[in-house]
């Protein structure tokens, strides 16, 4: 999937609330994930994705399951750099982290 299709697919999952969040390695709530703890909303994540330009996006592999493609977005909003890291296990999107 290309950059634009990935963004569209994430937005679809967000609108349909087909969203999972990874837990920490010890199975705890990762407080750095501001989306998981409710500090930012789905609408704000969509806004950040829409602000992301092609050069602010990269793909990598999941650290232990190389079959999973991890999508990393690094948009800027009001001079603040954001970091969004997620992957798909259809039909859901899985967020590793959303933080400043």
């Amino acid at each position: 999937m290309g950059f634009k299709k990935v963004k569209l697919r994430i937005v679809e999952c967000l609108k349909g609330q087909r969203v999972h969040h990874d837990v920490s390695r010890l199975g705890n709530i990762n407080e750095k994930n501001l989306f998981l703890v409710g500090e930012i909303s789905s609408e704000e994540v969509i806004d950040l994705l829409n602000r992301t330009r092609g050069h602010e996006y990269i793909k990598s592999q999941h650290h232990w399951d190389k079959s999973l493609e991890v999508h990393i977005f690094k948009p800027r909003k009001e001079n603040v750099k954001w970091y969004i890291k997620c992957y798909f296990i259809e039909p859901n999107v899985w967020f590793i982290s959303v933080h400043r």
Partner: protein
Amino acid sequence: MKIFKEGEKSKGPCSKCKKIRPTTFKVSSVPFSSGRGIVNDILVTVCDHCRAVVSIPQQSTPRIREALNSKKHSIEVRVPIQLLDILLLASDQFGMGHPDQLKDSLLRYYIALAESDKKISVELKNFSDSEMAAGSGQRLSLKVNEVIYQKFAKVIERTKLSKTQVIKGLILQINEDILQKRVKKRIEELEKVMWAAA
């Protein structure tokens, strides 16, 4: 919008097994990674193989947020009696009884309003300097959650006023909107808020 149910099956990457495993939605208590506490009874997925927590669905976020925000802050100031009377009179305008209880919701609403509306922030300084704001005979104590407290802190930072000046300014803004000018749009909006708070 998808709502996951307890007992529903899914699949996900179990970090303990290091494999994509079948999972089941279950209610569980999950600690924060910082060690600051635990969130009781949230929906999570657990690995069908090793029973480790694999993920937290988005629908559990309000419970996590509530656990994080359960800490209450107290805003304590001293104001003249006429400002307390304004708060009680404005709260009583909605005809729901218990103005003393509703006044806290009214103030919380105006803190959030001042944080989002820069025009109101500007007005606060003028109001807090006015003759009506002079005096400090009565104690006013307002309990707020973390979110409202942060908004209050932002208003203080933006206006460079003290917390007492901000509260005095907000009460006089309430006087202007509800008792003096009777701003229809604001009163209609507040009526809904007050019903929820009553």
